[in-house]
């Protein structure tokens, strides 16, 4: 229950920032999932 707009914004922003961090970590995992069967590019 939020009594003021400040409380609501505080809660929403907290959840959003945590989710953004989780999403960014998930993106790294997704990128590895997507590309781990690709042939590595030779750089020499």
């Amino acid at each position, binding site marked *: 229950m939020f009594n003021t707009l400040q409380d*609501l914004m505080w*809660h*929403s922003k907290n*959840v*959003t920032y945590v*989710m*953004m961090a989780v*999403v960014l970590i*998930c*993106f790294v995992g*997704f*990128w590895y*999932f*997507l*590309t*781990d*069967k690709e042939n590595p590019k030779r750089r020499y």
Partner: protein
Amino acid sequence: MFFLSSMFAGLSMVIFEGTLSHRSLHHLMDEEYNAGYEDLHFAFAKGASWIMAGYLAMKLIGLAMDNHWSYLATGYGAWWLFEVVGFVLLPCYCYAVGYRDRNLALIRVAAPWTVLGIILNRFDVGLVAFNWRLPSADRYFPSFSEIVISLFVVTVGVLAFRFIATHMPIFYVHPHYKDASH
């Protein structure tokens, strides 16, 4: 969100249209066109899955930003979940697995699935969720003439594509320009 969804809609539509073209217009395609066909589809599948993952993330973050989690327990929330899970998450996974395993058949399934999802999304925005608080009698629904005009525009698009693809050098190099470098 429209801009982001139009990106994977375009990629999916090219894969879908390419699959249909290969079925009915394969005899018009030359070797050069066919040589890069599979690689192009794999590249598009990789791009589409990546963009769809970003779109999913933005959908979730949008929900969190507005603190609308409670809507998920309603009928509209269930419909939202049906759209997001059924027509974004699952095709995204299919594209990713299709690219990873070099499975062109799976990519060809994911492409029309994604296109259907985009159509559903546009209908949701324009019809289902438009003025959703109003009683259903006051809500917008297209008239018969609007539906006919929409079908006419789509039909003209398909016919124009077919006319251009069968009468102009789209799938092959024009004989007069075979040796030209471009």
